[in-house]
């Protein structure tokens, strides 16, 4: 296995810092790979391509977390249009209004301090 220039996580975070949600695509398997890896989990090939997501997706599963202190917040699994699933949250509406099957679009938002930006989603206008 050749030594990569940077880790899969570093590449992913660099894309986020540029306002992009990146994922990998395996030409050999003909399918996306997420979370990012050093090699394709379907073929073992190292020739994974980095691609940038369109940022469109659909809510696959959703919950509202009620912390012991502080406000409730959303956690969802999003099926991205390119065929990979990720954990994120849906913002812009009350968490209890988030529905499975809802069309959502990516927003990359900054975090406090040195934390890297994170990919969240908002409902697509005019659709629900």
């Amino acid at each position: 296995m050749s030594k990569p220039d940077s880790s899969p996580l570093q590449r992913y975070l660099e894309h986020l810092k540029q306002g992009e949600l990146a994922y990998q695509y395996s030409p050999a398997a003909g399918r996306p790979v997420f979370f990012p890896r050093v090699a394709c989990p379907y073929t073992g090939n190292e020739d994974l391509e980095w691609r940038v997501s369109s940022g469109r997706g659909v809510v696959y599963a959703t919950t509202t977390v009620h912390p012991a202190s502080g406000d409730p917040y959303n956690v969802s699994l999003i099926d991205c249009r390119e065929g990979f699933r990720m954990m994120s949250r849906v913002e812009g509406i009350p968490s209890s209004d988030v529905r499975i099957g809802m069309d959502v679009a990516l927003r990359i938002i900054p975090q406090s301090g040195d934390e890297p930006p994170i990919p969240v989603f908002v409902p697509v206008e005019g659709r629900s």
Partner: protein
Amino acid sequence: MKGLVRANAAIVGVAESDLGAVAEGMSPIDLMAQGVYRALDDAGLNISDVDGIFAATSQVRLSALALSEYLNISPAYLNSTIVGGSSFMLHVAHAQAAIQQGLCEVAVIAYGSTQRTVGRKNASLREPNPYETPFKPFLPATAYALAASRHMFEFGTTREQLGAVAVAARDWALLNPKAWEKKPLTIDQVLSARMISHPLTVRDCCLVTDGGGAIVMTSRERAKTLKKPVVAVLGCGAAVTHNSISSMPDLVTTGAVQSGRDAYAMARLGPADIDAVEVYDAFTINTILFLEDLGFCPKGEGGRFVEGGRIAPGGSLPVNTNGGGLSYCHPGMYGIFLLIEAVRQVRGECGARQVKGCEVALAHGNGGVLSSQSTVILGAESTV
């Protein structure tokens, strides 16, 4: 499971350690050792008979070494497979393999946890996942809540049906003197309890207790010479589908489909042959998922299946007869208690909660966030 021979090995001793809230300063290994000595006593064996050590806990990195030191033995065979709460079902399978191959003759499988005393956050290593942690999932509850949301969406499962699982577990617990919970519970109380991660309230979630236990295994031939009736290992199966919930292929279908299928095939039995069902109920949705995936009802019917007291005492399918992780005890990796209860049901030792004529019991373990599924089918000598 491939390579294992039906009814070649048997469980000959079982015991819980102290449960609930244990004495101050007790360690996980103290609890393991308590379990081991009590289980050996149950089997009519001595520590000098033991040449195989199996141990798992989230609190001690080298638990098999720590337990061997504590017991002052140098075992011929050691195993610390750790896949969460289903670890102990895999230990049973691996112990059978070791016994079958002559690597050891008498194996003990032990667990101990003081998570109530030390606090849940201090009971296991923090493992940030850069693709999940930023969204602050309250794990493991949030992962199971996501699965529940999907089950409700696809099959119309209701919060009341989830509540029925908690109520059935509580009704069984009221028949078990060792259970943590002592008061009745209603579906309304489940629904109106503090919300943790929607749709799961605190009453949809397992207890946070201390506790431990142990199992003694040997060949079935040797088991016939020991104190208690033979409880043969008829079938074992295991499957891993993912580690983190965002990588689970299908949130409403677990690896229990495969682990169950493999265990039934080895046992040459099916769901209709199981007298007592012990499944890992870390959350109410688990019971529904596992009843479906292990073939007790069709996929999607689990919610309707648990209504009307069907899995409660007096119902047509006895499920989680000790009161489960929801109402009996849950120190974090609960699988060993399912095996202990399954053995006691097959032996007929369960008193008020005994399933009449129980000859075959199924113990199904779950580890991680629906990640690791492992099934063990146990039977009386009459079923061999």
